C-alpha cells in the first residue's frame, strides 16, 4: 500500500468536469494512509473526465467518469488490492478505438507526468535533447536536423520550421529574440492550452534548442490571459529550469545563455498574427504591419526575431533526441510527423488527439471520435477556426496533410476540429464565424474592417429570412476583395467559412432565401416552436420557464405557444421532460 500512487488529471477541462473536487475528496484518506496523491494534466480523453489513475504494485490503471461514489470504491480497492473492472477507459473498447490510431510525440507526457515537477520531466528524458545539442552539435547542425525532419509550423500557416530558424541564424544583429506564440485564439481549439498545462518543460526545451540553433538571447512566451493555469505552470517551469541551469547564463556549463519570460496577452485575436503579436509585446495596439521586413530581420524592438507556435516547439526535443528519420517516417505528401487536434462539437468521444499525417477525416471522426454524440448523422467538420472552413461529410476521405486540406477550401489551421450534425445550420455557422472575425478585425485594412461588416449584414439578412439570391453573388464578390486587400491572415482568410459553406451547402442558403426555411431548425426568424398535442401531459413546466409568458394552458391540459409572443429561445424544448415540443 505504501507504494501506491494516485494521479488525478487536473487540466482546466478536467477541473471543470469536477476533478478538483475528486482530488480534494480523496486527499485526506490517501494522506492518512501515507500514499502519494499526485497531479497530472489532461491525458486527452476529455470525454471521460474526471480521470483518476492508480499505480499499484507496478500496474497503472486509468479510471474515467469518477464521481464521489466511485472514488469511494477506488479507495476501498486500494485497501483490498482488488480493483473494479468498470470504467477502465484505456482498456475498454471505446478507449482502444480512441487511442489505437494515435501517435504521441508532443502529447507523450501530457497526463502522465506531473507538469509542476521538473524531476518527473527529467525522468522522462527531459532536457536530454538540449544537452545533446549543447554538447554534441554545432548550432548549424541543429538547424539541419530540424530542416531534414520536415517539421512545419503548427500554428496554421505551415512554414518549414528549419528554414525559418536558418533566417534568424543568418540575420545580422547582436541581440535576437525568440517568441513562442501561445495566443491560441481560435474558438474551438485548445491544443496549446493542454500542452502548456500538461508538459510546459517540453515547450521550453524546444525553445532552448531553437535559441541555441539561432543565437537568440531572450525568449518570450506570449500566452492568452484566458489561460491562467497554463501561465501559472509555465512560470513554475521557468523557475525550476533556472534553478537547474537549463535557463539563464552559461547553460550546462557552456557559453550559451538564454533568458525566458511569460507575457500575458490582453484579449485580441489578431495578436496571433506575428507582427501584431510583436507590437503587443512592445506594449502597443496589436496591429499587423506590412512584411517585409520579416521578423527574422526586424522584429521586436527592430531586432531579429523568430516566432513559432507551442506545438512546433513541442516537437523539437523528440526530433533532436531520436533523429529526423524517427519524425519524418510519419509522412504523407509534403507533410511530416504528427498533428494535434482538438476534437469537439457534437462528437461522442471528444478530446485532444495526436495523429500521424495521412489519416483521413473519416478515420478521426468515426473511429477515434466514435461519430456524433447525438446519434444524428454527421454533416460536416469545421477545421481551422474562423480562418478555416467547413468540410462536408462527402469529403471525409480527405487525408490530413496541409495540401489536401487546403484543396477543400479549409485550412489545417492550429488544429481545431468541430464536428457538426444535421441540427447545425451552416448559414448560421458562417454568420457566427464572420461575426467573430468582424469583431476581431483590428480595423487597419478597409476591406477587412468594412467588408466583413457588410458580409455579416448580408448573412444576418439571410438568416432573418430577408435574403435574396443576388446576396450570394455579393458575398462572393466581397469575399474576393477582402482576401486580396487585407494585410494579414485574419482578413485574407476571413471569408473562408462563408465561401466553403456556399460551395458545399448552397442548398441550405437557397432554402433560407427561396423557401424562407431553415432546414436545421436553428435560425429563429424562420422557425416556429409548437407543442405536440398528443405528447403534452400538461405538466406546466414549459409555461413556468418561458421568459416571455408565451405558453398558456391549465394543469393537465394540453398547452399552447403563442407564435406572436414566442421569441424562439428554445428554453421550453430543453426543459420539457416528454419531448412534446418541436421546431417546424
Amino acid at each position, binding site marked *: 500500500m505504501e507504494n501506491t500512487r494516485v494521479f488525478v488529471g487536473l487540466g482546466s477541462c478536467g477541473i471543470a468536469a469536477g476533478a478538483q473536487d475528486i482530488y480534494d475528496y480523496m486527499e485526506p484518506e490517501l494522506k492518512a494512509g501515507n500514499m502519494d496523491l499526485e497531479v497530472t494534466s489532461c491525458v486527452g480523453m476529455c470525454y471521460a473526465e474526471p480521470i483518476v489513475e492508480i499505480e499499484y504494485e507496478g500496474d497503472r490503471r486509468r479510471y474515467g467518469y469518477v464521481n464521489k461514489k466511485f472514488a469511494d470504491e477506488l479507495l476501498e480497492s486500494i485497501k483490498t488490492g482488488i480493483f473494479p473492472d468498470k470504467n477502465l477507459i484505456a482498456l475498454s473498447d471505446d478507449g482502444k478505438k480512441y487511442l489505437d490510431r494515435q501517435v504521441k510525440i508532443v502529447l507523450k507526457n501530457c497526463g502522465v507526468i506531473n507538469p509542476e515537477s521538473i524531476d518527473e520531466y527529467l525522468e522522462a528524458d527531459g532536457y536530454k535533447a538540449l544537452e545533446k545539442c549543447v554538447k554534441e552539435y554545432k548550432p548549424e547542425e541543429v538547424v539541419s536536423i530540424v530542416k531534414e525532419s520536415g517539421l512545419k509550423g503548427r500554428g496554421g500557416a505551415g512554414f518549414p520550421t528549419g528554414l525559418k530558424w536558418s533566417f534568424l541564424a543568418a540575420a545580422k544583429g547582436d541581440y535576437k529574440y525568440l517568441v513562442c506564440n501561445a495566443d491560441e485564439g481560435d474558438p474551438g481549439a485548445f491544443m496549446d492550452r493542454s500542452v502548456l498545462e500538461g508538459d510546459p518543460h517540453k515547450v521550453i526545451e524546444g525553445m532552448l534548442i531553437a535559441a541555441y540553433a539561432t543565437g537568440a538571447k531572450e525568449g518570450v512566451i506570449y500566452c492568452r490571459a484566458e489561460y491562467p493555469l497554463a501561465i501559472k505552470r509555465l512560470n513554475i517551469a521557468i523557475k525550476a529550469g533556472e534553478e537547474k541551469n537549463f535557463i539563464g547564463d552559461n547553460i550546462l556549463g557552456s557559453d550559451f545563455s538564454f533568458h525566458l519570460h511569460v507575457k500575458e496577452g490582453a484579449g485580441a485575436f489578431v495578436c496571433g498574427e506575428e507582427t501584431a503579436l510583436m507590437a503587443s509585446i512592445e506594449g502597443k495596439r496589436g496591429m499587423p504591419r506590412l512584411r517585409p521586413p520579416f521578423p527574422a530581420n526586424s522584429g521586436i524592438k527592430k531586432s531579429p526575431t523568430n516566432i513559432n507556435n507551442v506545438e512546433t516547439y513541442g516537437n523539437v526535443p523528440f526530433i533532436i533526441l531520436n533523429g529526423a528519420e524517427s519524425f519524418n517516417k510519419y509522412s504523407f505528401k509534403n507533410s511530416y510527423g504528427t498533428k494535434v487536434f482538438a476534437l469537439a462539437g457534437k462528437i461522442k468521444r471528444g478530446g485532444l488527439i495526436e495523429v500521424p499525417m495521412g489519416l483521413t477525416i473519416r478515420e478521426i471522426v468515426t473511429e477515434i471520435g466514435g461519430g456524433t454524440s447525438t446519434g444524428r448523422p454527421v454533416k460536416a467538420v469545421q477545421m481551422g477556426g474562423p480562418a478555416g472552413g467547413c468540410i462536408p461529410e462527402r469529403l471525409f476521405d480527405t487525408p490530413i496533410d496541409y495540401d489536401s486540406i487546403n484543396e477543400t477550401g479549409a485550412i489545417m489551421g492550429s488544429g481545431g476540429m*468541430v464536428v457538426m450534425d444535421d441540427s447545425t445550420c451552416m448559414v448560421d455557422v458562417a454568420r457566427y464565424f464572420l461575426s467573430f472575425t468582424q469583431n*476581431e478585425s483590428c480595423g487597419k485594412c478597409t476591406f477587412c474592417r468594412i467588408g466583413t461588416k457588410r458580409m455579416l449584414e448580408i448573412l444576418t439578412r439571410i438568416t432573418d429570412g430577408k435574403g435574396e439570391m443576388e446576396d450570394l453573388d455579393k458575398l462572393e464578390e466581397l469575399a474576393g476583395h477582402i482576401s486580396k486587400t487585407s494585410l494579414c491572415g485574419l482578413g485574407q482568410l476571413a471569408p473562408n467559412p462563408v465561401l466553403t459553406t456556399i460551395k458545399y451547402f448552397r442548398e441550405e442558403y437557397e432554402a433560407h432565401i427561396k423557401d424562407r426555411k431553415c432546414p436545421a431548425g436553428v435560425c429563429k426568424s424562420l422557425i416556429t416552436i409548437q407543442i405536440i398535442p398528443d405528447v403534452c401531459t400538461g405538466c406546466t413546466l414549459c409555461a413556468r420557464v418561458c421568459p416571455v409568458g408565451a405558453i398558456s394552458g391549465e394543469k393537465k391540459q394540453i398547452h399552447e405557444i403563442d407564435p406572436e409572443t414566442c421569441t424562439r429561445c428554445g428554453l421550453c424544448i430543453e426543459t420539457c421532460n416528454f419531448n412534446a415540443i418541436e421546431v417546424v
Partner: protein
Amino acid sequence: MACRDCSDAVLEEAQDIVNKVGSEPEKVIPLLQEIQNRHSYLPDDIVEAVADVIKVPAADVYGVATFYSQFRFTPMGEHLIRVCKGTACHVSGADLLTSAICDELNVEEGGTTEDMLFSLETVACLGCCSLAPVVMIDNKVYGKLTSGKVRKIIKGYKDGKH
C-alpha cells in the same frame, strides 16, 4: 499634466504601480493589467496618473486599453460570469445559456446587475470545448450546462454558497 486634478492618493498609487511593474514603454499592458487587478476596472484618474508617471501620453495609453477586450472602463460586479461563445459552445447552445442568464439576472450582455453582484460578459473561447457549453464564473469553469443548470448555479452564488 494630464492629471493635474488627481489627488495625492491617486498619484501615490500610480507611483506604487509603476514601481512594481516597471516604467518602460513596453510595460503599458502589464501596467493596465495591474490597475485592473486592483480595481476590477480602469478608473480614469489612475490611468492618467500612471500615464504621467511613465511619461507616455494618456491618449496612447487609452489607445492600448481600448484595443484589448480584457480591459473594462466601468466597475465590475462581485462575480464575473463569462459565457463561452466558442464554436463548440455555439453549436451546443451557448445562446440559450446567455438568454437564461440575462433573464435570471435581469442584465444585458456586457452589463452589471444593479446590486453589483454580477457582471456578464461573453468570451471568444475558454478552451474547454469538450465540455461545451461552458460558463466561467470568477475562476471556476462549469461545463455541459443547460439553462436549468446555469440558473441553479447562479442562484447558489446569490445565496452565497460559492
